[in-house]
């Protein structure tokens, strides 16, 4: 009886709110130019993508981009042209140099767009990568059931990185590749070959940003969380006959400017909006690219020249927190597809 009373009071106080999908009537408006750039010292990450916005409820993407031209101005040194490898996708022929200043210029449909001038930071580095056991609390929001809390034993991955006068902010991206294998049952005779497969877990959530903590004078990025991996690899696999064989963690570190950090923070604010009662009024996320030929036109997106470094680690978590864990940095960087499998032959990138 007492418990019923307690829950009734709790329901009255905290469970009164509810949230539901909402589809308002929104105006159709003309599209705006979107500029996505990833310009780094890595030749594979040295491009600009141009696109056009779609109306919010449209399911078909507009394709109205024609006759666009992209170039990178290396201040004091010349122009680096971009080659359009596919519709809206432009790759630069030369990588930028740390310490130099750059500006992006785009001409599109009789308009000229230019970015602010940005400086490429020095190459980034991390001091160390380490892991800790953690019980991750998540909430499962079933379509057919109530919200339930789930506790998952995981290994949380952290890094420490330096903060210097010339480089204070970082952005991290990662891909964790789970190696798995499977030995098919034999029907008699020569057993079929083992299957070696892999799948990727990507960072498609918020932008992972690191830098000086607000109000803190700590001279480094300390115990910055990157991501976590569950001990039970079967959470990622689709068959009980598959067995995990360790993880390859690809950690991408970008050295970014404060302006770029602030821009990505604003994006994170937008992406993480929970409808909290006291959230600030919604604001636009404007970048640093402007239409110089027509002030009234808005360009979305951001231009930054980032320094880049990649780290790879092999991680074998064991079964639980009492198991011995293997962590080893990998110094080879083959291309690894997102997922796949092959029979009988261990993939070329396989780690043990």
């Amino acid at each position, binding site marked *: 009886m007492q418990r019923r009373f307690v829950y009734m009071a709790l329901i009255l*106080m905290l469970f009164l*709110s509810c949230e539901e999908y909402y589809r308002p009537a*929104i105006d159709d408006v003309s599209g705006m130019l979107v500029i996505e750039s990833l310009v780094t010292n890595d030749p594979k990450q040295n491009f600009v993508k141009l696109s056009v916005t779609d109306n919010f409820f449209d399911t078909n993407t507009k394709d109205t981009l024609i006759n666009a031209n992209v170039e990178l101005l290396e201040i004091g040194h010349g122009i680096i042209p971009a080659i359009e490898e596919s519709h809206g996708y432009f790759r630069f022929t030369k990588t930028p140099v740390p310490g130099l200043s750059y500006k992006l210029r785009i001409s599109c449909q009789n308009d000229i767009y230019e970015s602010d001038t940005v400086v490429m930071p020095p190459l980034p580095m991390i001091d160390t990568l380490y892991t800790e056991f953690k019980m991750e609390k998540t909430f499962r929001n079933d379509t057919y059931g109530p919200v339930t809390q789930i506790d998952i034993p995981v290994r949380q991955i952290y890094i420490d990185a330096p903060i210097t006068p010339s480089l204070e902010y970082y952005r991290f991206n990662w891909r964790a590749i789970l190696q798995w294998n499977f030995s098919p049952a034999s029907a008699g005779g020569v057993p079929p070959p083992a299957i070696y497969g892999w799948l990727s877990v990507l960072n498609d959530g918020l932008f992972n940003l690191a830098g000086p903590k607000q109000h803190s004078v700590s001279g480094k990025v300390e115990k910055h969380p990157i991501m976590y991996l569950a001990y039970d690899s079967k959470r990622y696999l689709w068959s009980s006959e598959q067995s995990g064989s360790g993880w390859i963690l690809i950690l991408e570190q970008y050295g970014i400017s404060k302006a770029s950090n602030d821009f990505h923070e604003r994006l994170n604010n937008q992406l993480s909006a*929970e409808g909290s*009662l006291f959230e600030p009024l919604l604001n636009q996320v404007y970048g640093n690219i402007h239409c110089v030929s027509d002030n009234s036109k808005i360009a979305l997106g951001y231009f930054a020249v980032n320094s880049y470094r990649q780290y790879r680690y092999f991680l074998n978590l064991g079964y639980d927190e009492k198991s011995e864990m293997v962590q080893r940095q990998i110094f080879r960087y083959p291309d690894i597809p997102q997922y796949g499998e092959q029979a009988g032959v261990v993939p070329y990138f396989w780690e043990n």
Partner: protein
Amino acid sequence: MKYLTTSSCLKTLSAFVLILVLHFSVSAQNIQEKLISGKFQKTSLQEFFNTIEKDYNIRFYYRTEWIKTYVVNQEFKEMPLIQVLNLLFERQSLTFRFFQNNSVVIFQKGVDGRPTTGSDEPEILVIGDPLNEGRYNSAQIKGKVLDGKNSETLAGAVIFHPQTGIGTTTDSRGNFKLDLPTGDHTLQVSFMGYEVLKQKIKLIEDGTVSFELFEESFNLEEVTVMGEDAKASKSQMSMIKVSSRTMKELPVMMGEADVIKSMVMMPGVQSVGEMSSGINVRGGNTDQNLIMMDGAPVFNTSHLFGFFSMINPDAVKDVTLYKGGIPASYGERVSSIMDVQLKEGNTENLKFYGGIGLINSRVTLEGPFVKNKKSTFLIGGRSTYSDWIMRQSQNEQFINSVAHFYDINGTLNFSLGENNNLKLMGYFSNDAFNLNSNSLYTYGNAIGSANWKTNISKTLISNLNLSYSKYDFKLDQKDQNIAEDDYSLITGLQYSSMKYILSWLPNERHRVNAGFQTIGYRVFPGKIVPSTNPSNVIPEKVANEQSLEMGAFIDDDFDLSTNIALNIGVRYARFMNMGPTTVLKYDPNQSINSGSVIDSTVFGAWKTAKMFHGIEPRLSLKFNLQSGGSFRMSYQRIHQYMNQISNTAVISPADFWKSADANIDPLISDQFAVGLFKTPKKGLFETSVEVYYKNLQNLLEYKNGALLVMNHHIEADLINADGYSYGLELFAKKNLGRLNGWVSYTYSRTMRQTNNNFPDEIVNAKKFYPSVYDKPHDISTVLNYQISRRWRFSGNFVLSSGRPVTLPEQKYIFEERQVVYYSDRNKYRMPPYHRLDVSITLDENLRKKRMWKGSWTFSVYNFYGRKNPYSVFYRKEPSIQLQDKTPYAIFKLSVIGVPVPSITYNFKF
């Protein structure tokens, strides 16, 4: 020998007759007062009569068969005959009458022809000793008139005797005296808003009596004229007065009456929604209302992030809200003045009362504290037990959460002679809130005031108010991983004021008020303090602000003619932003930001860094119409020098205040209103139509991505804007009857515009756009029904336009994530808001003599479970099955999406 003339004989005879008559009348009186002694045991009545006849020479006339069953078993010791006979025939079917000077006639009741006034009241109140019935010709009734529910005295109640036309009224303590002939009467006892009591009495001799009246209707009314000694002017319009009783009757969330939210049922007053602190009056921001308790302002008006009002409803006497026509004695805020008057304490007896609810409870004790009962006190408090409730839960989210508040309030009222009165008030509150996060929010108010009223002479009254108000907020922020990164953020505000008003009433037609006010502000915009030692956190502080505001005012409230009343006033307001401070000068050709600073000036302590001043005319006019009712108009100009900085839709406890300074101009408002007011059917109904227009200069808007917390130069994130509001308010109310209530409809618009030239200071391309408080349509309906003396029902229904909202209009992919581009600010509107609340109350016992009185209130807030959207937001939600298969969607959050029942037990001892 002299012969007697005829005239002299006649004179002599007349004198003789007169002497005889007098003798008889004296004898008649004497026969009543004849003292009877004797012991009679089981004596038949006939035998008793025979004894009296023999011993006292008194004749008895009767029919034998009437008295044969009567037996006398009494001992009389010098008891007047009238008392003896009254004792013998008390509650019997026989009665008596004296005849001539030596006889008594015995007869049966109902045939005596004694005059009665024909009342149909079943109960007869006997005043005096029944033994003395018939002994006196007249008597005086003294007594009180009380509220039958709470035994509070009713001043100004009328006691009327229709037969003779004699009547009187109760004084300020509810006392009255009335002289009437003895006998049976019916008195009419009445008081505005209460059922008329027709009480049959048998008046025998002087006596004391109490009459109890019960409410017939609610006291909520759009009051435009008050009593003779009231503060409101004769031409006052746009004023609302709510009594504490009315406020408690409205069905509300969790059964707890809310002073602030009860105002939302009136035209022109709105709120952003549930869980919102404060109110919006005629489209104004929440910080444009000056809410005062006994003259001291309140800066945070809610507990638990908007769940409960911070003002204890049990301590409230009444609430007055000025929406327009604000008197010259008030300033500081442009939209409204809410004057909450707290009770002084019961002058007669100690009273203890309170309420027990599901989440919180409250108690109050009041009464006189000196023997002569001239000085009184009241002390009350509230607290929640939500923390205990959450700890009993098995849910980890709740076990690790904190949500509680408490508040204590008290008043002391000293009656210092006939002409002086001193009232002291104190209030203290504290809130703590943490919902399973690393951030603990704590905040609190400390408020005090002293009011000294002096009647200097019959025409001169002086009022001195000293007040102090302090608000503190603290956020304890714990880092998830590094303890050395923990810190606390502290903000706050202190307010001190002295206000003096001299009222001069030279004659009935004039009332002149003059006075001055001085206000001191200290604002603490923010301070970061490390929580651990050692710590990675550097202590940081945004410079405090100190300022002084002064006001001098005068107004004259007078009758221009029998049909025209006028109030003309003016207030001079002066504001000085003081040092120590550093004032930055920005390049006028650039947007204000850290890169456009061209100069700076340092001001020492108490040096004036910036001064503002202005004249604030106030005018109101009433014109009585031939057809009944009145036409009114008002104009006011007000400067506001303090603004609350908040870029959320709802005010939160973390929001801080900012004074006008060299880079932020004061807000200026001009409001003009006209209205028609009528009370048809002799006050049974009340109707009004009001139209207003308000112009606002120097509103504050916020730049995109404005960072407000710990911002040392917040002017760089603010945008100067202008705006206007206009509206039509319709109101109709039934004051009396078992069924009563009101309906109000408001059509209003509130628009804003930024008029700057720099790109980051332009919102919506300089076009006018609706403010977040813009709600074009608003309907409020309140219905009350007194089912019986102990049962009453109350319901209210509200319907309003949804508030403006900014929605994503376009989407695009950026670095593999879907990002949106929002529409113009406040371009869209949320779905309409509507809600029905009901409550039913049972009073346990209404008997006056019963010490403990309790009542049960069962209420349902949001009766049909309307999911009124509180906010609309955009979020990734892969589990939702969407037709268009996009992972992101728009959601709406309803704070109260289900019916909320509650039970509250209120008691009084």
